[in-house]
């Protein structure tokens, strides 16, 4: 008992004991003079250490100045944005928005071309990739220079046989993949420190 209790005197001194262990030690201290003596000496040692004045150091103000002057350029880690941050949501939304814009502009010009050429507005023709291509061909003939690029992109899409909704779900899928990758990266990065010995990531 006495031997065992001696191991807990420091923890008792540091107020790190709880519950039954604390009661045990208190009870033993009340009964054992040797342990009371040891505890007193341990307390004196601790007080002695704390009372020992350190030498004068450079004042914080001057030290901080010196350190900030010597700070190296920090390698800018290619840090993907944090989940939930503005950039995290904005990047895919901007991609989707940009794509949608191009798509809508193209469709509108298609419509206008169609209405212009025939004088009537088709019902659902724009959902049909082949009719899209047809109007495209017409538009290409009508306005050669300006819309060459848009037309190139869209006829490429049409060449793949993608309808509007198919390519829309393709875009959404790509964005979902992007988010999935970011989330995965974030999880992998979290618990692992860059350099375990010198730069701990705290737990």
């Amino acid at each position: 008992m006495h031997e065992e209790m001696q191991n807990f005197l420091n923890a008792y001194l540091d107020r790190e004991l709880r519950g039954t262990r604390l009661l045990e030690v208190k009870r033993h201290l009340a009964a054992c003079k040797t342990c009371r003596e040891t505890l007193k000496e341990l307390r004196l040692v601790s007080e002695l250490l704390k009372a020992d004045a350190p030498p004068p150091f450079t004042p914080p103000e001057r030290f901080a100045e010196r350190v900030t002057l010597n700070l190296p350029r920090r390698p800018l880690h290619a840090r993907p944005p944090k989940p939930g941050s503005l950039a995290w949501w904005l990047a895919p939304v901007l991609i989707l928005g940009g794509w949608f814009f191009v798509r809508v502009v193209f469709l509108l010009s298609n419509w206008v071309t169609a209405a212009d050429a025939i004088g009537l507005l088709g019902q659902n023709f724009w959902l049909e990739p082949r009719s899209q291509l047809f109007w495209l061909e017409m538009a290409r003939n009508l306005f050669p220079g300006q819309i060459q690029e848009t037309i190139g992109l869209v006829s490429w899409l049409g060449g793949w046989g993608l309808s509007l909704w198919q390519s829309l779900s393709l875009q959404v899928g790509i964005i979902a993949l992007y988010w999935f990758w970011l989330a995965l990266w974030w999880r992998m990065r979290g618990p692992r420190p860059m350099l375990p010995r010198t730069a701990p990531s705290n737990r």
Partner: protein
Amino acid sequence: MTQLQVEEIESTIIEQSQNGDRHAFGELVRRYYSGVVHVVYRLCGDAALAEDMAQETFLRAWIHLPSYHPQSPFRNWLYRIAVNATFDVLRKQKATELEEEEWQQIRDSSLSPEAIVLAREKAGRIQQAIVSLPEAARNVLVLREYGGLSYQEIAAVLDIPLGTVMSRLNYARNRLREMLQEEVKQQEPEYA
């Protein structure tokens, strides 16, 4: 200011520093320097070296700041870097001790005898006793007495089990009790 407000300001400064704001990092240095340099001094027993080590600690902290997660106190994260940096240097020093001795002789010859005595006395008996402890026990003792960390925090900072913290602290305080017997006895009457 409430504790909560203080913490809020602090986490803002840390975030700014993480984003590369040198001015904000300077503020962190001002706040934590005293604690860090004192802990490091107790580990190595040399004031000049302690300041160098404190600087090294903050430079490492600056570089690795993006990997800091605010779940645990910034102070503890710094102490971990400080302990590692200090022992990296102390081990290296040991390896080049012979060379160092030669340099020391050259340096000493330019000092007056009084200055040499003063320099040697600077680290008092208590500090000498601390430095004579084995590295593992010294870490725990210094973080407890001068870092003010709880056993749980020491275990986290040094990556050791709680039981090991207790046994190393027991060893350290008991060794010091033997080494500092005279000092302890001198203090005793005040409490009688």
